[in-house]
């Protein structure tokens, strides 16, 4: 067991974890942050995407111990949803029907936020390439791409 201390969605947390525990397991099993989900075992699907110190990572590809001393943001901490707030990218996904079953959605939104942080005014092509690591089986990506472009558009206005 290794002791880790980190900040998750604005709260300081500390736990003893097995060295092999993945960050995604830590989030789900220890912290109950079940908004972040697991879709594969080969780091292909992106369903588990969170932000580590502000940059998107696949949390199934990071050990919990690697997050020691760092800051993690999940879909649950992206906006003050208890207050009814939505992050503009969350709002865009709803507005543009960028989700159906919603299983890929937390990862998609976290990836999109990061993408727009890097490139606030992307072309459709850039969005498609930037979201390539996140799989969706429901939407055919059409409305996901639209959601990201819509969020970029909204940020300009």
């Amino acid at each position, binding site marked *: 067991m290794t002791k880790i201390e980190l900040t998750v969605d604005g709260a300081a947390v500390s736990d003893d974890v*097995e060295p*092999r*525990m993945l960050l995604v*397991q830590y989030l*789900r099993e220890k912290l*109950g*942050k*079940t*908004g*972040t*989900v*697991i*879709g*594969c*075992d*080969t780091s*292909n*699907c992106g*369903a588990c995407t969170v932000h580590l110190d502000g940059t998107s990572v696949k949390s199934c590809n990071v050990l919990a111990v690697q997050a020691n001393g760092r800051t993690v943001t*999940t*879909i*649950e901490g*992206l*906006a003050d*949803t208890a207050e009814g707030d*939505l992050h503009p990218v*969350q709002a865009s*996904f*709803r*507005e543009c*029907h960028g*989700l*159906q*079953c*919603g*299983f*890929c*959605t*937390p990862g998609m*939104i976290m990836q999109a936020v990061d993408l727009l942080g890097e490139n606030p005014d992307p072309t*459709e092509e850039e*969005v*498609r*390439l930037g*979201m*390539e*690591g*996140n*799989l*969706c*089986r*429901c*939407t*055919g*990506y*059409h*409305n*996901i*791409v*639209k959601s990201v472009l819509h969020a970029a558009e909204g940020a300009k206005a």
Partner: protein
Amino acid sequence: MTATQDRPAAEIGKDRRRKEDQRLITGRTRWTDNITLPGMLHLAMVRSPFAHASITSVDVEAAKASPNVVAVLSGKDFGAELGVCINAWPITPDQKTPNHSPMPADRVAFAGEIVAVVVARSAAEARDAAELVDVEYDELPAVIGIKNALKDEVLAHPDLGTNKSALWVFDSNEVGTGSDVEAAIETARTDGIVIEREYRQQRLIPAFMEPRSVVVDPTGEQITMWSATQIPHILRFALAATTGVPESKIRVIAPDVGGGFGGKLQTTPEEWIAWAVARRLSKPVKYTETRSESLMAAHHGRDQVQTLTLAADKDGKVTGLKVHLDADLGAYIAVVGGGVPVLGAFMFNAIYKFPSYRFECQTVLTNTTFTDAYRGAGRPEATYAIERLMDELAAEVGVDPLEIRERNWITHEEFPFTTVAGLEYDTGNYEAATAKARESFGYDALRAEQKERRDRGDRVQLGIGVSTFTEMCGLAPSRVLGSLDYGAGGWEHASVRMLATGKVEIVTGASAHGQGHETAFSQIVADRLGVPFEDVEVLHGDTQIAHKGLDTYGSRSLVVGGEALVRAVDKVIDKAKHLAAHLLEASEDDLEYKGGRFTVAGTDQGVAIQELATAAFAAHNYPEDMEPSLDADATYDPVNFNYPHGTHLCAMEVDTETGAVKMRKYTCCDDIGVIINPLIVAGQVHGGLVQGIAQALWEEAVHDDAGTLVSGSFVDYLLPTSADTISFDVVHTDEPSVCTTNTLGTKGVGEAGTIASTPAVVNAVVDAIRHLGINDIQMPCTPERVWRAIQGSKAGGATETPPDAMPHFAEGEANQQSHEGALDQDGAGQ
């Protein structure tokens, strides 16, 4: 009938943002794997690495000694309480059906089959211990691939004596819906056109994004199962029928479910094992599969060889169609199993006026993952075959593919039309959908560009693919299902509860997993009952709340479930009217219902439906001849399928030097009757399109000769990404062909995109290189297959046709030569 309000529909047709989304975009979801119960134990499965083997021993001692392991159980530790996995649709009375134990004690029949289960205090500990279970196997010869199975040399289940499970036949001449297809083919051989082809429907994996997960809680009076399933009601029935627990003691809940596409239309070994273990240990248990397990052991889809003969006269007017399918069931006959190809039986004739038709389907057993429904289930296969053949016919006659279709389709004046397969298509307008798609696509300009590139000898050639599909959906009239020997009906149930505060609860037997029922059903109720959209709450997916239902698949929820809802609402309005007349001291005949309010004609007196709900709750003053309640139920059994249709046009660029293919444009004009929510419809179409396109271009589940799934992870099973796909041009006809068999005039849309798109894409790829002498590329049309086809044609010959590829064709037929780009028809993809 009911006095329904006549105010203009405010909600139906509106692009309402979805009610579901708030929880999904904020991570406030309840997936099955999110559920944790006090004292809950975790399961890990031990799976066979062999496709076919006897189990000689299972040594669990080391696993049992592993930290925090509570139990390790194998097939021999259970008796009848383990139950069996059912096949609900034996397609013929003499179907050969292997016994399907959730965890066999003696013999495994596919790689990935479960032989033991480890129960531990954490999922990680269960998985660790699963590695320590020592199973000894005696390997048996495995049969892989349809053609091998048909030889009956190696048997998937030796005790059955054959791999051939059932032969299902429909012949229009025998049932009187058409003439003799053999005669039509004979005539065409001498005085017309005969097109003979063999098409391969490769094996696919539904690959929903949420891995399957099940939680069973045996504490309390009812045993509760949460499952990532499309079919909580069918699951409950099957648990009761096979495990000896009374149905009334079983509660099944499908919480938030992350996609299904037919892949969660199953009663699974994993669910049965979790059920048995929880009962055995009297503790809540959870099992969540890994993606690798999901790809290996959750059911696969498609997997057919289609042998097709189309007869036409010299002008390309079709005269007959003969279809022989060989369909791979895998190792067991899953819940719908052999019924999937049979669902295609009625659709090969599609929108065309075939005078004669014969369909045969031979199902076979192999030592591979069992197959079952995948989006479209039977209808994509049929649509692929006929739409590919129509393009071939057009090429043979030398006319545009749209022209050949127009010569043969049912014209809009001819509806209702009874087809050669015996279905009555109520409405449709193929001319209108085609005209609109053609215009939106820019068909003529793209054809001109194609010609220009061809003339120029451009390295990158352009191809245009057409698919004018129809399908039968809204499963299904119960009597029809009965006549096909399906084990259940096709009705749906709905309840409307008028709450004391004026809010409305809708209970539906449909079980959404991404379709947006909460939104669409609220729109329907808001309009019909005249209450605010926001005041309607849709409840579903829990057999204790939605006690009756037949769940969600086959594009049925709106057209069958929605109709049940309409009828329940109408009953509420009837009751409310009686109460309103009493309270207003008026005659029911003088009451008008509009905007959620009864008014007395010619007065300013009135009462709102919400007030009536409160009055019924208080029950201080109501008529003698009614109960103090406005609530109502309805169970609706559809009278017919419904028949959405559309024209899909696809432009593909093919690099003739590398074989690379690239989608340039995709336009579809679907006629799905009245649209409740255009936003949701567009989403269904987009997602469906990409699944169909993925079959054409990327996806294939491949077992090697030993029966190991080679495409067992997302590294190898190529799900399309955002970078692989394009944005689509989705349009609808200006005047939809309103469905005549339901009140709202709706048709199903859940599967349309998948059914239509596959042939449109392959037709486009072939069209781009047809001038090189190529008339087929086996799916998926990978760059390598395309490149090989081009190389084969450059070398002056067709790719070799495997000797047994077209067994029933007459030799020496002109259009016999195959240019298939398949690497190895017998090996790859089976």
